[in-house]
């Protein structure tokens, strides 16, 4: 910063006199499923007064779903997002179980759905780490943009790139076996699933598992080593202190598919525990802000000013007391040892936590494939139709809530979805403000600053990466605007990472 007073992070969101500020906007050019934009408002002394991350979600779905039959929901909602259709499928599946009056699935049905879920998290985490994030971490945020992408990764670390591809492919195969197709499959139906596995499908997945677990371990140690290599820098980068929220087992174990809500504060105190996830609306409030289409959820207990929280791998590995698979549990203990007195708050530790989960999913898949229930034939339960169903799961990016109401005919009258990226909305804004406050020198828009903002946002794996899939190719426009709206500087990064003004 140009002056000696540290910028007060919490004051950055809304400046007192925005009319006197200049504005820097960072905006991706491609808009596929949603897009991100960062606006930095500067004052006349070129200090950052305001920083906002805008994510434009596809919001048409609530209307699109209205009037549709409830039993279609798991398949319909797959169209919400090209990146996490399986997570939406399963969250809606849990909701329609309730709408169909079913509280407990058969062991076979629950295990088939879990298998699909672990496959999805594994493939999503593999894609994110190997394709999107590892180049940042391996080559450094400020390294040549031409190298800092998956192509550079393939050139310099071909084995690693191959492992990433094959891990992802394995996860996709798990999905295909359970859903019939890699994308837009079917699996969850009201009160159950439409198929289980036969022994040839099980054997097919089993044969690759030892390799996947080995690669999962290697990916984990890579993520861990990369973090620890520049430990202090990584601890501080984009760091914010927030409570962490996730589903959790009643006994405190890590749980990705079904459990109670738990919120742990920075000092380890459990603000909420064993909360029926269908009561989410009593604990999470959604605030609307004039400058963003996306809602800003907050913890009701802490209020809109201080109620921001984080979800996703970092939150889950922090909030649970143990993991029920041995390799991931050992990794969790090492991870938590980083901050013996509280939670691991470093934003970049998301990557490390994500790889603990990837390994955990591989171990879980191994357990499930050994379970005879997976081959069972008792697929579906039935019950009396009910007016409301709320399905909550831990999607790769964090807690995912699908809440539906239907009329007596069985048609949807109201839908409320809170996706992982929305939970993290406040936290991502705060991380962006932290980075901006740390790096902006008050003189000009530097590529390094843009890259760092990008790296900070990417750590959360927000769904805006749907729109900006090719890493290092995230097209951005940065504009420096005078208070009167006149653009005085513009920095453009095109899809090949080339800069122009």
């Amino acid at each position, binding site marked *: 910063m140009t002056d000696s007073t540290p910028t007060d992070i919490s004051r950055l969101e809304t400046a007192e006199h925005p009319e006197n500020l200049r504005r820097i906007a960072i905006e991706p050019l491609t808009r596929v499923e949603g897009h991100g934009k960062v606006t930095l408002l500067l004052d006349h002394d070129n200090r950052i007064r305001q920083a906002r991350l805008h994510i434009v979600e596809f919001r048409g779905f609530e209307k699109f779903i209205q*009037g*549709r*039959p409830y*039993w*279609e929901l*798991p*398949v*319909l909602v*797959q*169209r919400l997002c090209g990146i996490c259709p399986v997570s939406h499928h399963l969250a809606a599946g849990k909701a329609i179980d309730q709408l*169909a009056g079913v509280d407990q699935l058969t062991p076979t049905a629950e295990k088939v759905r879990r298998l699909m879920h672990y496959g999805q998290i594994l493939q999503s985490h593999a894609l994110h780490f190997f394709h999107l994030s590892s180049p940042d971490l391996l080559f450094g945020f400020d390294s040549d943009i031409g190298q800092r992408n998956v192509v550079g990764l393939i050139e310099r670390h071909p084995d690693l790139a191959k492992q990433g591809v094959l891990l992802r492919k394995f996860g996709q195969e798990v999905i295909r076996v359970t*859903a*019939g*197709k890699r994308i*837009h*499959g*079917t699996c969850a*139906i*009201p009160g159950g699933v*439409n*198929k289980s596995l036969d022994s040839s499908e099980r054997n097919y997945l089993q044969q690759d598992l030892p390799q996947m677990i080995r690669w999962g371990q290697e990916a984990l140690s890579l993520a861990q080593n990369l973090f620890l290599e520049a430990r202090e820098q990584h601890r501080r980068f984009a760091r914010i202190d927030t409570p962490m929220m996730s589903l959790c087992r009643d006994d405190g174990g890590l749980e990705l598919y079904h459990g109670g809500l738990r919120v742990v504060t920075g000092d380890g105190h459990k603000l909420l525990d064993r909360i029926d996830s269908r009561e989410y609306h009593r604990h999470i409030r959604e605030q609307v802000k004039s400058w963003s289409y996306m809602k800003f959820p907050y913890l009701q207990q802490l209020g809109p000013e201080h109620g921001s929280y984080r979800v996703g791998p970092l939150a889950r590995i922090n909030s649970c007391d143990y993991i029920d698979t041995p390799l991931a549990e050992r990794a969790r203990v090492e991870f938590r040892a980083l901050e013996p007195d509280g939670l691991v708050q470093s934003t970049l530790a998301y990557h490390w936590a994500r790889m603990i989960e990837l390994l955990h999913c591989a171990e879980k898949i191994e357990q499930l494939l050994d379970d005879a229930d997976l081959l069972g034939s008792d697929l579906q339960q039935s019950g009396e*139709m009910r007016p409301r169903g709320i399905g909550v799961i831990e999607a790769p990016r964090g807690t995912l809530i699908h809440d539906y109401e239907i009329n007596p*005919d*069985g*048609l949807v009258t109201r839908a409320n979805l809170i996706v992982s990226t929305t939970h993290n909305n406040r936290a991502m804004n705060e991380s962006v403000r932290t980075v901006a406050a740390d790096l902006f020198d008050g003189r000009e828009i530097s590529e390094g600053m843009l890259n760092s903002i990008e790296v900070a946002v990417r750590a959360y794996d927000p769904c805006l990466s749907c729109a900006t899939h090719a890493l290092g190719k995230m097209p951005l426009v940065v504009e420096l605007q005078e208070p009167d709206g006149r653009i005085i500087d513009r920095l453009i990064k095109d899809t090949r990472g080339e800069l122009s003004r």
Partner: protein
Amino acid sequence: MSGSFSIDGVTVPFETGQSIMDAALAAKIYIPHLCHNPEFQPHGSCRLCCVTANGRTVAACTTLATDGLEVANETHEITTRRRLLLKLLFVEGNHVCPACEKSGACQLQAVAYHCGMLAPEFVHFYPKRAVDASHPETIIDFNRCILCELCVRASRDHDGKSVFNISGRGIDAHLTIDSPSGRLGDSRFSASDKAARVCPVGAILPKHRGYEIPIGRRLYDQESISQVGDVASHREQEDG
């Protein structure tokens, strides 16, 4: 009396009074069709079954077979015309295959694949149509109705109820239900009616269920409609 004629050079026998379509079905030669079901009076409305008979374009389902007739069915020209008809059907309604319960067992989708239609070409109309879920056991999704009138014929000629009708002309044509409220729940329709089992697409479906047959095991997942035949004939078999 009987005789024979040819379809694409293959000799096909027929009984007097049989249409080109009936004779082809009996000889296991597939002529693409949507509004035809051998159990009901031919209707000749979808025009998908159009072939050339001695050079003249006719609907196979409403044209009687005659001795020595030379029928062309799967020529490049005819298939191209069928693709055009199918593309129009797809944009006139809201046919969202990836989300539809009938996907994989839908005659419209299967015929489209058979005719080599891989992607829509025209601008979608996105008509605003509703779902009628008022009946306890059966649902009608008007978004997917292709106005083949099979349910109309089944309800009138088989069930003796005349629950369904087509009203309006041209682009305004739509399926109506004979009941005081215009809703299925208030009509005399019953899920055991023949009319519940003839829809070639996903417009008339059982309620509270869907996607029960996994991908890979659905009607048209393994074999083309030219081998498998119509949806309705399989429904009859399933229901015994």
